[in-house]
């Protein structure tokens, strides 16, 4: 007797259940899912994660501030104050200049270390006289490393900029001496550019780097949030399925007078709610962590004047695209969830989903999809999650059609996957899937 179709169709019509009980059943399952998934332990780990990000952000800021402070020690073997004077001109309040009184470099290094010096400059004998003759002079520069941290790299960059400033200052002095009627700045940088950017039919002042910096920051945050929601939602729904099997509650649930569609719907919505809560908490911490690194360049004109800003319609489409992407993830996971046996195996089952999400995430971050080879381009477009990740890039240029096509594709994909999930739930595969899978693995091993 082949009964799956007939029984399944009756199941998904709700077996004559009126809409009110159906909504009550859905609400009951959603409530149960949220209670089961949003545990104290999970909340504690999330809060810990958010606090950790805040702490990391604070630490990063203090490291950056620290790296801006530079202690320069000078061993002046020429006994002139020329370099000191230049440093006081080019330096900022973050630069502290210290003159070291020592007979040789070795003892100067010792003293510099004791003074927490970042760099020791050794001015050789005859420095001033050579400069007066406009000859090249070599000064020794000893960077004193306290460790191998990122701070040391930032300090090196600061020192290089100071040396460049010294060179520029000395060169300007030379130019002034040789050609008093010329502006030293004009001689040092005879060519300057005035930058314009042409986007669509508009020409406005600015550089492509400035524009891409802004658009990239806008289009990066959305894929990032999306990736997190998708992964969390997927993880939650599979954990839910795993827990049902582990605690042996699935059999009871499947014999209750509730339609299979209600069970699937309740699990999907419940998981999405928990995933949303997780993402919000995570993002609060992450935003604080990222804030010092996400300062945007200032443009002479607003993005609106370029015609590359998000319109209300754009935001609406983006919202729908994100919602559809979450549905896609949940529908995939409800099918994968059938094969989970417990909460632990549910974690493992999220790996394929992570890979599917990571491919478009990485590609949209570093490459323009249109520039990819045809095969890879088809693969990226076939992954439903690529569409919302690319959506913001299309939407800020008011290019709505590709986003709408993507949404249609995601809706079809979701419908098809939910249909597969519903079919599985209406058969005994939901209980026996492991048997088949284990058997296949055993046969394969043999």
């Amino acid at each position, binding site marked *: 007797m082949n009964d799956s179709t007939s029984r399944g169709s009756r199941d998904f019509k709700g077996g004559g259940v009126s809409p009110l009980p159906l909504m009550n*059943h859905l609400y*009951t399952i959603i409530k*149960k899912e949220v209670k*089961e998934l949003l545990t104290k332990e999970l909340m504690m780990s999330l809060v810990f994660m958010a606090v950790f990000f805040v702490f990391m952000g604070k630490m990063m800021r203090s490291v950056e501030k620290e790296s801006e402070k530079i202690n320069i020690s000078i061993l002046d073997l020429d006994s002139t104050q020329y370099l000191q004077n230049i440093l006081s001109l080019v330096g900022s309040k973050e630069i502290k200049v210290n003159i070291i009184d020592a007979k040789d470099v070795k003892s100067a290094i010792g003293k510099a270390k004791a003074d927490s010096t970042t760099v020791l400059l050794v001015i050789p004998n005859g420095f001033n006289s050579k400069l007066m003759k406009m000859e090249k002079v070599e000064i020794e520069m000893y960077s004193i490393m306290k460790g191998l941290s990122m701070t040391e790299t930032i300090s090196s960059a600061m020192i290089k900029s100071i040396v460049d400033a010294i060179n520029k200052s000395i060169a300007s002095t030379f130019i002034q001496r040789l050609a008093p009627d010329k502006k030293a700045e004009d001689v040092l940088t005879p060519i300057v550019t005035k930058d314009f950017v042409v986007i669509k039919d508009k020409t406005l002042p600015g550089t492509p780097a400035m524009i891409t910096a802004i658009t990239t920051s806008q289009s990066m945050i959305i894929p990032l949030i999306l990736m997190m929601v998708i992964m969390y939602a997927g993880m939650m729904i599979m954990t839910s399925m795993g827990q049902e099997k582990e605690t042996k509650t699935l059999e009871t649930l499947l014999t209750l007078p509730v339609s299979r569609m209600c069970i699937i719907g309740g699990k999907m919505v419940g998981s999405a709610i928990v995933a949303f809560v997780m993402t919000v908490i995570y993002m609060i911490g992450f935003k604080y962590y990222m804030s010092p690194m996400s300062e945007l360049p200032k443009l002479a004109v607003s993005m609106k004047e370029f015609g590359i800003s998000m319109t209300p319609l754009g935001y609406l489409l983006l919202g729908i695209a994100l919602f559809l992407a979450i549905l896609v993830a949940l529908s995939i996971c409800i099918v994968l969830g059938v094969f989970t046996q417990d909460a632990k195996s549910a974690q493992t089952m999220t790996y394929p989903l992570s890979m599917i999400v990571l491919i478009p995430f990485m590609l949209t971050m570093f490459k323009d999809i249109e520039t990819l080879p045809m095969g890879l381009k088809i693969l990226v477009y076939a992954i439903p999650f690529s569409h919302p990740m690319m959506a913001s890039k299309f939407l800020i240029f008011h290019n709505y059609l590709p986003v709408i096509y993507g949404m249609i594709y995601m809706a079809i994909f979701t419908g098809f996957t939910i249909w597969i999930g519903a079919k599985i739930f209406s058969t005994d595969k939901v209980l*026996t899937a492991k048997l088949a899978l284990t058997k296949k693995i055993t046969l394969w091993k043999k």
Partner: protein
Amino acid sequence: MSIMQIMEHSVVVRELVKTYGTQKAVKGVSFEIGMAEIFGLIGPNGAGKTTILRVISTLLQITSGSVNVFEYDISRDASDVRKLISYLPEEAGAYKNLTGKGYLEFIASFYSTNTADKIKMVNRGIEIAQLGKRIDDKSSTYSKGMTRRLLVARALMVNPKLAILDEPTSGLDVINSQEIRGLIKEFVENKGTVLLSSHNMLEIELLCDRIALINDGLILEIGTPEELKLKYKARNIEEVFVSVVK
């Protein structure tokens, strides 16, 4: 199968076959359960008892044959069957983060939209479970016996027309087992029908109106305990079982 047969019985099973891949778990069994009857399935591990219970509970699909629960065909009208039955699996659990009472409320929500009915159902469940104040604790803190009592309460509180109980007293001590048996008898006195399976021959003998002895996916004998004991000249069902299986 005639309509009269279906009308007279709560469950009618005809030539039921269930296979998992190439393995035949149930090889064509037929039996019927009367109204307000306690019908027991006994047999060794792997005999096919749980598979039969799972099929009647609408969890597993039939490979061939037919099963009717009251007027409904389980293949065609699974969702209608689920409104009439309550299934207690052998290895069942409750949701870890729900309290005992929360779990009973969760189950009751599917059987009635009327708040008063739901409260009545839950109160009946609390009475059956006999967990005292622990009913307000999370089920993850319960012992195996406490969880089983909660699950039996869950199965019987909704007052199903057919209760399908797989090893109902599994994990319970003598006192608790006796109480549960009393509840099952009380349930039948109130016109409910019970299909149960057990390894406990004494329990089967004490509870069941009729029993089916099953081995290797086939029913070997069906009858009342007294009929079977007489037929096999045995003092108890355990001896009947050994004689039949040998």
